[in-house]
């Protein structure tokens, strides 16, 4: 049965897996696995080794990403396998009384049903499925957590045999390995220490439990703050330590001491996987984040010093987010300039706990509003139940008037709270089951163990992370472990229902067990109908192709350089260069990293066919702590023919200095580009010297005002760009992909405008056709950039096609605006941004319809517009 669960999960994930790289860190992890390059701290060497093995099955480089994704799919299926075994193990203890010799058929059915329902609920849950179909470490870490939890139960079964110690040693070894995947796995240790205590203790006491809790916490602490940094500090002496441990193992006679020696040794053995990071960093590959090439640098890499320290107290701490805290909390009461304790608590509960944890939890077990990242707005990423009147009340708006953009959002999933209900029943059952078993508190002991797993992998992380508002992406993936624990309870819920049914008809015990099982099985099946469409990433090549488009934008000659900023305009480019060998003559230079000395080191090295970047500074000048920023006391600076205005700038950061340095040394033949997704704050002083050529601007010394290179842009859009299979019917375009398609729409709109301005309607029409062919509206809804296309159609007397675009934009804006009106006033402030955007769209669309005398459309919507203007 467990293998059947494995097979189901493997097939589901195999069918929905992304066939190439995915956004965010996935591209980076694929490069780490395929070429053993160094990703972001704290690194994942064990993941790299396993991913590397899977890469070997690829017949050509373009298959590599798929293979690594399949690794995630298989590991996730493995996690489901162990979840099934765990649930059935726990349920069996509670269902079958110890006095009974044989289990009866209805009991067996109930136990198996618990496992199947719990495992399937987790299989089809949102967060877990998301990580299962892409190349991230979360699938692997879920697998290891599940494995460790199962192993401790395995130990529990055989604890009386002298050979049971090997399970403990194996757990220690996996703990060591898991450091080389993700530290999340350590968090199941406290729960596991309770399993050991309950099994070993002759009499369970409160004092003993308190002690166990402390031991469990201490274990995590020792590994996290002792072993991990300690071993690195010891450097070469680690070998001596290992030898000493081996000797001690053979000399010592006490079993417990012997066991702890063996465990420590095995943790070290697992942890030794960091040799991969150290050795490969010494090879200085093109991607080598933080360059942990010496033992001391490896120490700061492991400590993730790059990200800075996050305190546990106070909860409102980041001075960079002063305004964000205020936006979230409203007025913040302060004493002596710092927020009061009560305000800290209010932030902790309302944002960190409620919004950044329970919301995610409820997404998985109750329902999710849509896949748009939420910052507290009524329309973005909330949890919903699926019952209209509850949701209306929760969100404070009228759901029946929801714009079609949101009702058709594939990320809208409603489970009517059924999985949550099942889980709660499971908790109650576990609690109540204690009384009537022979061993009086098995149920409650189980409950404590699972609760501890649930809390440590959920709320404890919330406390540790101390997140500020305005996170760059949704963070639900970090809490997959606690959703795993809840899925155990969901499984247990089946036993409760089955038992209640049986009590009513004792004579038909088997029949009632079957009925209960089938009813409960409907819950995960209903979940699958909801979550399938927003996790099916098959046929989607957008991440790879958009990364390709950034690179191909640059001219073919002169080894160009592209300056990028975020994750999604950097990692996909790396993936293309490193794995698929695209444009290795160019260089990607991430501005965020350019602030650090080790990245500048890398930029000063040649990589593949790209020579070193033109930076003449010596290492002493830019090393950490020097020239972090330079005060500005001039209004303009001149580099060659280019006069750059620094008006309003108080200082230049190190990365900005580096860019100016490169500009002053780069010969005109080596162009520097800035990515279109840089954002207006970055390098704003170069604003007037940019020429748009595609997904990037070329920095041009001769230009005084932003321009468009129409010929190159046309060539890129029409002949060089790839569109990631966006024309495939039913392809899943999530919010992040949509952001990138919007950049393409924007560029195409600019191109059409420019061509029309030149009077070149023929080529403008070609661009329109290309747009409609590659990014059809049903997959990529038009943004207001599409109005350029409408203008082009009108100019060519294609009135119907033009009308289609204009009226669809007008209809959507009217829908949005009329829905926002139903939002209750206290929550409407959050929708101000959406309101403004759609007002703008409506205004522009109306202007176009007026300009081309489309009276019908104009008349239809002008009253709407005037109404909302007030």
């Amino acid at each position, binding site marked *: 049965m467990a293998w059947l669960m494995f097979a189901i999960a493997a097939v589901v994930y195999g069918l929905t897996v992304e066939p190439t790289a995915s956004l965010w860190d996935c591209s980076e992890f694929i490069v780490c696995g395929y*070429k053993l390059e160094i990703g972001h701290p704290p690194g994942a060497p064990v993941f790299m080794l396993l991913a590397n093995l899977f890469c070997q099955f690829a017949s050509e480089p373009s298959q590599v990403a798929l293979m690594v994704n399949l690794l995630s799919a298989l590991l996730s299926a493995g996690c489901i396998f162990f979840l099934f075994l765990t649930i059935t193990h726990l349920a069996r203890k509670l269902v079958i009384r110890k006095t009974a010799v044989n289990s009866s058929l209805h009991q067996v059915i109930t136990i198996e049903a618990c496992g199947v329902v719990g495992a399937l609920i987790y299989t089809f849950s949102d967060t877990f499925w998301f990580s299962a179909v892409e190349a991230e470490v979360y699938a692997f870490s879920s697998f290891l957590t599940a494995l460790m939890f199962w192993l401790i139960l395995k130990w529990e079964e055989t604890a009386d045999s002298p050979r049971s110690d090997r399970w403990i040693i194996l757990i220690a070894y996996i703990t060591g390995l898991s450091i080389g995947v993700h530290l999340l796995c350590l968090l199941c240790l406290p729960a596991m220490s309770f399993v050991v205590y309950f099994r070993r203790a002759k009499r369970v006491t409160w004092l003993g439990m308190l002690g166990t809790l402390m031991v469990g916490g201490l274990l995590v602490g020792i590994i996290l703050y002792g072993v991990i940094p300690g071993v690195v500090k010891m450097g070469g002496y680690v070998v001596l330590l290992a030898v000493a441990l081996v000797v001690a193992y053979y000399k010592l006679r006490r079993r417990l001491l012997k066991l702890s020696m063996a465990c420590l040794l*095995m943790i070290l*053995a697992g942890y030794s996987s960091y040799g*991969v990071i150290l050795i490969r960093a*010494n*090879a*200085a590959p093109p991607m080598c984040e933080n360059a942990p090439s010496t033992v001391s640098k490896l120490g700061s890499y492991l400590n993730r010093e790059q990200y800075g320290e996050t305190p546990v107290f106070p909860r409102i701490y980041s001075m960079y987010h002063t305004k964000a805290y205020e936006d979230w909390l409203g007025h913040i009461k302060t004493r002596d300039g710092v927020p009061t304790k009560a305000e800290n608590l209010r932030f902790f509960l309302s944002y960190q706990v409620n919004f950044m944890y329970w919301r995610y939890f409820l997404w998985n077990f109750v329902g999710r509003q849509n896949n748009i990242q939420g910052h507290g707005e009524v329309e973005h990423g909330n949890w919903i139940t699926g019952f209209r009147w509850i949701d209306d009340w929760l969100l404070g708006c009228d759901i029946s008037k929801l714009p079609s953009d949101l009702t058709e959002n594939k990320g809208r999933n409603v489970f009517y709270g059924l999985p949550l209900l099942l889980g709660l029943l499971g908790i109650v059952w576990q609690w109540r089951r204690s009384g009537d078993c022979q061993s009086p508190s098995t149920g409650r002991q189980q409950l404590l163990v699972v609760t501890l797993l649930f809390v440590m992998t959920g709320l404890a992380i919330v406390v540790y992370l101390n997140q500020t508002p305005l996170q760059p992406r949704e963070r639900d993936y970090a809490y997959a472990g606690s959703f795993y624990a809840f899925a155990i309870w969901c499984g247990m819920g089946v036993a409760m229902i089955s038992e209640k049914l049986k009590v009513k008809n004792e004579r038909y015990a088997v029949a009632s067990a079957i009925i209960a099982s089938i009813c409960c099985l409907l819950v995960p099946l209903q979940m699958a109908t909801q979550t399938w469409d927003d996790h099916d990433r098959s046929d989607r090549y957008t991440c790879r192709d958009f990364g390709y488009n950034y690179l191909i934008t640059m001219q073919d000659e002169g080894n160009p350089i592209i300056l990028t900023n975020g994750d999604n305009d950097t990692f996909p480019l790396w993936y293309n260069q490193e794995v698929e060998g695209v444009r290795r003559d160019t260089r990607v230079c991430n501005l965020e990293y350019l602030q650090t000395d080790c990245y500048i080191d890398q930029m000063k*090295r*040649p*990589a593949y066919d790209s020579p070193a970047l033109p930076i003449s500074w010596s290492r002493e000048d830019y090393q950490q702590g020097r020239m972090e920023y330079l005060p500005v006391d001039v209004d303009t600076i001149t580099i060659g023919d280019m006069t750059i205005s620094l008006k309003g700038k108080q200082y230049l950061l190190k990365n900005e200095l580096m860019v100016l340095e490169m500009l002053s040394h780069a010969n005109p033949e080596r162009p520097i580009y800035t990515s279109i997704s840089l954002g207006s704050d970055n390098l704003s002083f170069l604003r007037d010297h940019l020429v748009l050529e595609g997904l990037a601007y070329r920095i041009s010394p001769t230009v005084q005002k932003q321009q468009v290179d129409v010929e190159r842009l046309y060539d890129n859009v029409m002949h060089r760009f790839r569109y990631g299979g966006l024309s495939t019917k039913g392809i899943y375009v999530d919010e992040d992909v949509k952001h990138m398609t919007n950049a393409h729409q924007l560029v195409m709109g600019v191109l059409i405008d420019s061509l029309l301005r030149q009077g070149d309607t023929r080529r403008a029409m070609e661009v329109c056709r290309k747009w409609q062919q590659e990014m059809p509206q049903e997959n990529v809804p038009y943004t207001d950039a599409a109005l350029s296309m409408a203008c082009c159609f009108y100019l060519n007397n294609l009135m119907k096609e033009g009308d289609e675009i204009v009226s669809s934009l007008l209809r959507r804006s009217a829908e949005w605006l009329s829905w926002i009106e139903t939002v209750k006033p206290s929550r409407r402030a959050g929708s101000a941004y959406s309101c403004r955007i759609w007002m703008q769209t409506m205004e522009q669309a109306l202007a176009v319809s007026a300009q081309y005398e489309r009276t019908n459309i104009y008349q239809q919507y002008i009253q709407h517009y005037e109404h909302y203007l007030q």
Partner: protein
Amino acid sequence: MNTISSNSKRLFRVLLTSRVLLIAACILIAVGYLLMSGPGSTEQSFSPDIFSTRKIVIAPMFCLAGYLLIVVGILRKG
């Protein structure tokens, strides 16, 4: 004939004891790391050799085999 097969069986049993397996695993890992190391790129030149088959295909396989063998070693008797 019979003695040979029983001898080889015994040899087999000794070879597959936990201790021997663990030592073998350590050797595999060490060999893997040795194969993986070598000179890197410098400021003067990019060295394509850092992506040679030895370093990014064979070496990691040795390491992985070693790490997996440890699991077997832990679970076996002796």
